[in-house]
């Protein structure tokens, strides 16, 4: 089994690769985790991960700047049905539009917009930074065995914008931050986490292992 972590200049991916390697080893899943910016490697991979830190437009620009990457992603994920995980801005890029510093088109795989966080309680700080619980709206293979709810495990968040999918059924889990914020979104073979599983210790490693086992 091979996993392609797409490297498009959005931050350091070594810790993400290590987290995937450790999760795979813990779960007894063999396989190769590769950092790549090669569209053909994305086509050949069994599973695809799109990380992302920084601003929506910058990340999209980075992705667009790799010749053939958008085509390879569409081929592998949309036509090919391969399991896909977006992380943080990589999750936000699933949206049709990002409204951070102007309007930017996303991948458009899940209809909806990425907009600024505006917690109902003005005392809450932006960015939403730190550890928060996941509130599952429904079961999903990525959450198998992961304790959710107020007494469940925590995930590490750091973001100032959030994804509002048009179809609420595309929200798998939320997080409470002055209102409901999408934490895990998905449809079919596509999933995305607003939090950083590679920085989320127990919960993160469990979710990554679930992704590696996922057969959508």
């Amino acid at each position: 089994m091979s996993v392609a972590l797409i490297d498009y200049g959005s931050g350091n991916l070594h810790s993400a690769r290590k987290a995937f390697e450790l999760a795979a080893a813990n779960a007894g899943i063999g396989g190769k985790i590769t950092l790549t910016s090669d569209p053909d490697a994305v086509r050949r991979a069994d599973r695809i991960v799109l990380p992302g830190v920084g601003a929506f437009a910058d990340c999209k620009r980075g992705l667009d700047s790799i010749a053939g990457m958008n085509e390879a992603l569409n081929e592998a994920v949309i036509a090919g049905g391969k399991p896909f995980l977006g992380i943080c801005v990589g999750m936000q890029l699933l949206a049709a539009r990002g409204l951070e510093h102007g309007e930017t088109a996303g991948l458009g795989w899940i209809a909806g917009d990425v907009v600024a966080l505006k917690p109902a309680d003005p005392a809450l700080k932006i960015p939403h930074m730190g550890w928060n619980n996941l509130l599952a709206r429904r079961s999903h293979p990525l959450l198998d065995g992961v304790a959710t709810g107020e007494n469940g495990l925590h995930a590490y968040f750091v973001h100032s914008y959030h994804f509002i999918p048009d179809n609420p059924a595309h929200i798998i889990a939320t997080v409470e931050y002055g209102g409901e914020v999408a934490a895990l979104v998905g449809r079919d073979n596509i999933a995305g986490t607003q939090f950083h599983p590679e920085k989320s210790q127990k919960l993160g490693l469990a979710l990554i292992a679930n992704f590696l086992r996922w057969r959508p």
Partner: protein
Amino acid sequence: MLKLRVIPCLDVKDGRVVKGVNFVNLRDAGDPVECAIAYDRAGADELCFLDITASHENRDTIFDVVSRTAEACFMPLTVGGGIRTTDDIRKLLLAGADKVSILTAAVARREFVREAAEKFGSQCIVVGIDAKQVAPGKWELFTHGGRNRTGLDAVDYAREVVALGAGEILLTSMDRDGTRSGFDIALTRAVADAVAVPLIASGGVGTLDHLVAGARDGHATAVLAASIFHFGEFTIRQAKDYMAARGLPMRLD
């Protein structure tokens, strides 16, 4: 709900931890990576490295430390100390730091904060504020470990750097640092309430009650401490249990 963060801070000089961490049996208590792994296992919510390497020739030692830590720890890592240029930031982020803390360079040239935030995103730009009380209810920003006055009001400065794009403030009371007499709560609250970004309180922690006060009375969203954890006086878990027992939201995974 979002939890308060407890952040141990390690002073790193020439790639080695100053004084070391003595709460567990480490093969090498001076190895920052071993200390980081110990804190990762102990349930720290984040980790902070403060690089106090003085000589220019040894500045690169921190990149190796950060890179080895990022490969072994699955928790957020902030690195501060000696960051002067966006290239310094880029190198630390590429080595695996999640956030960088800038202090002197931001005082010297405020636009540096904007440039850094625009280039890397506010979420990874922490601005450090070292403050000393100069009059009742007035605190001034100092640099160089509290030796150099800047003439800048700490609260005004915090507002200014946040407007420029700082995503978090690391506030240290230079009056309290190393005294173990607790955070300067009035300072912490004045800065925390003045800005819309998260604030890490630092300087003066000697007891677990000090951590409680920093969050409850100082309105900090994270508390940073060094010696009480490094020398095994309290474990991270004891600190978090204690804070939770006093009604503060803590992660006890």
